[in-house]
């Protein structure tokens, strides 16, 4: 099996999808000949032509509006937003249009073919506008699916599933891992399920939950915890919407404890939703308050980024506090 980094895995998934179905199109700012500022769409224009892989003018609301129209027509657009921080001009097209297209038309029309890719997250000295994790903004929107992969293998399988999913999918890529995360990735076509969490490590004392780049942070924290004799069950949520309540609940019923971590600010972050649901469904089994380890309630800073981030030490401390409660 070849080794790929996350960008290569994503590029490979796009290549497979475009080769298989000529209704699949890739476009966005600089995704054409240049292959995107991160090079996720490298060589696709060469291979599939300018009509299927192209630069768009610099207008996110237009990119998603155009993509909505294409999807309604029956094409399978994969639109790139250059940074997740720049997805907000398209918020109306996504939240009022993409998400509600099928419902409002009574299923006469839908934009299920649409996939929106966007690099997200911190840890690259990006400051306010090259670091945001906006998944929670979209998680309040019935009709959308939201997926975040944690490594190259996941990225390829989930992206292929997203492109073929009958519903529109927001696919947030942890850009910090684009080149940093490498691993074995099958060359063939495969899909991983959307809407299902994955238990990446079994344990009995505490459940630790995250997604995307935080999974690496969790791994480091859990290694510290295991050294102190704490047995951690680790869950990668993978899909933020719809999210796999049952798997999380099952784990917490077993461990009685839950630590959730994400990069985005605390207030209104998706950990709140998970905590609210789990406290309801596991009320009598909880042995400690559900803990949230997140970014602070501020815009994303630069010089003090390290201090701001929900890093492994903060997660580790939360695990210890939960077990010691």
């Amino acid at each position: 099996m070849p080794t790929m980094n996350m960008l290569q895995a994503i590029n490979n998934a796009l290549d497979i999808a475009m080769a298989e179905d000529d209704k699949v199109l890739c476009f966005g700012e600089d995704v054409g000949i240049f292959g995107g500022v991160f090079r996720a769409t490298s060589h696709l224009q060469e291979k599939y032509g300018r009509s299927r892989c192209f630069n768009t003018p610099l207008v996110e609301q237009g990119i998603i509006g155009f993509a909505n129209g294409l999807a309604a027509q029956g094409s399978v657009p994969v639109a790139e937003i250059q940074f997740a921080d720049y997805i907000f001009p398209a918020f109306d097209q996504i939240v009022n249009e993409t998400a509600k297209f099928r419902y409002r038309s009574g299923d006469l029309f839908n934009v299920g073919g649409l996939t929106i890719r966007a690099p997200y997250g911190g840890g690259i000295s990006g400051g306010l506008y090259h670091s945001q994790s906006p998944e929670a903004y979209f998680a309040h929107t019935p009709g959308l699916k939201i997926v975040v992969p944690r490594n190259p293998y996941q990225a390829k399988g989930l992206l292929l599933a997203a492109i073929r999913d009958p519903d529109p999918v927001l696919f947030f890529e942890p850009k910090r891992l684009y080149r940093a995360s490498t691993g074995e990735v099958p060359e063939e076509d495969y899909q991983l399920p959307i809407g299902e969490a994955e238990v990446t490590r079994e344990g009995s004392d505490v459940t630790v939950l995250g997604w995307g780049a935080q999974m690496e942070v969790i791994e480091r924290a859990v290694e510290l915890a295991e050294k102190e004799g704490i047995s951690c069950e680790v869950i990668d949520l993978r899909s933020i919407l719809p999210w796999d309540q049952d798997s999380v609940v099952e784990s917490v019923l077993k461990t009685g404890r839950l630590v959730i971590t994400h990069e985005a600010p605390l207030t209104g972050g998706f950990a709140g939703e998970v905590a609210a649901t789990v406290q309801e469904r596991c009320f009598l089994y909880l042995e400690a308050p559900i803990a949230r380890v997140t970014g602070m309630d501020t815009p994303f800073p630069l010089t003090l980024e390290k201090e701001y981030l929900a890093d492994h030490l903060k997660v580790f401390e939360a695990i210890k506090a939960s077990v010691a409660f």
Partner: protein
Amino acid sequence: MTTTQEIHSPTFLTGDELSIPTFRLLKQDGTLYDGGEAPELSREQALKIYHSMVATRVLDERMMAAQRQGRLSFYMQCTGEEAAVIGATAALDDADMIMAQYREQGALVYRGFSYDEFMNQLFGNELDYGKGRQMPIHYGSRKLHYMTISSPLATQIPQAAGYAYGQKLAGDELCTLCFFGEGAASEGDFHAALNMAAVHEAPVIFFCRNNGYAISTPSIEQFAADGVAPRAYGYRMHVIRVDGNDILAVLAATRKARRIAVEQNKPVLIEAMSYRLAAHSSSDDPSGYRSKKEEEAWREKDPILRMQHWLVGQGWWNDDEEKALQESLRREVLETMKRAEKRPPPPLDSLVSDVYADVTPTLQRQLDQLKRHIRQYPEAYPKGARSLDPDVKARDDASDAHAQEGE
């Protein structure tokens, strides 16, 4: 590509150096302007157009009255703009996609949407293709290639560009016509759409209904320029301004626009100058922002009368036919309205279907919980309670209708 012409003193252009004329064919008395040439139009198509205009007018009048009587929660009229909307539609291939704003029911009438179909949507009953989810006038029809209306303004404009681009790639030789108001054209999505369509050569006709107002806002407070048409220069896009109350001019202009779109893969902008004769919607009272006199002046330019005069001049129409048409349409509206009003609401399950292609576990849980709750208080939720003891027959009808619509 920028021009290479040079100047050596700092002279500003102001827009006064260009002006965009209005294309007109038909005078109000039904005769042609000198030098004007009517587009090819069979008696059959002419009458179809005229019937559609009248059917739209009658529907609007009756439904606004029904709204005033409290039978309907909300309504919006096309009144005054029937020529613009129906003339544009008549210039299309029936398989061309139409993406409209909300005031273009005439297009649906022309394509054969029945009064029953209108009524089912207006009353949000179990036969509404939209399953009773959207406010009245949010029609859609897959079989008639008419995209379901969405309230947020201008969102359909970039979507139309994308839809048309897809048609081009599919080699359909079809185009998309996108209707929008001069108010909606202020949205960012308008700029995005026209620019993307021009750069990517999408076969789309952007059809701006400039009816002078966006609710209470007159177009003079909407933009400082000479209408919407000059914006085409910013995208190097073909453009024409047309008298929107002139059915022949609209038809001729849109036909030519369609050829440019489909044969040259180039987007086109049409600005149809007209006037919203009625209130913005049933919630609006225009006396707060415009004069009766202004309204009267425009009533003189009624597009339906203008076409009627032309038809009579052609020898294709007379007073008796007019009377018979009006009467039969009025009768039909009332009958279909009664039918639709009595139809039951959509079933409870329609609350959670179509959010996703399949109902998610969370939604299923929420629906089950709702059902339990309604069982506890059936009298508080009469519409929902019906579903718990479903009238199987009614439901079957509904799914038959949907099956038809889905082709």
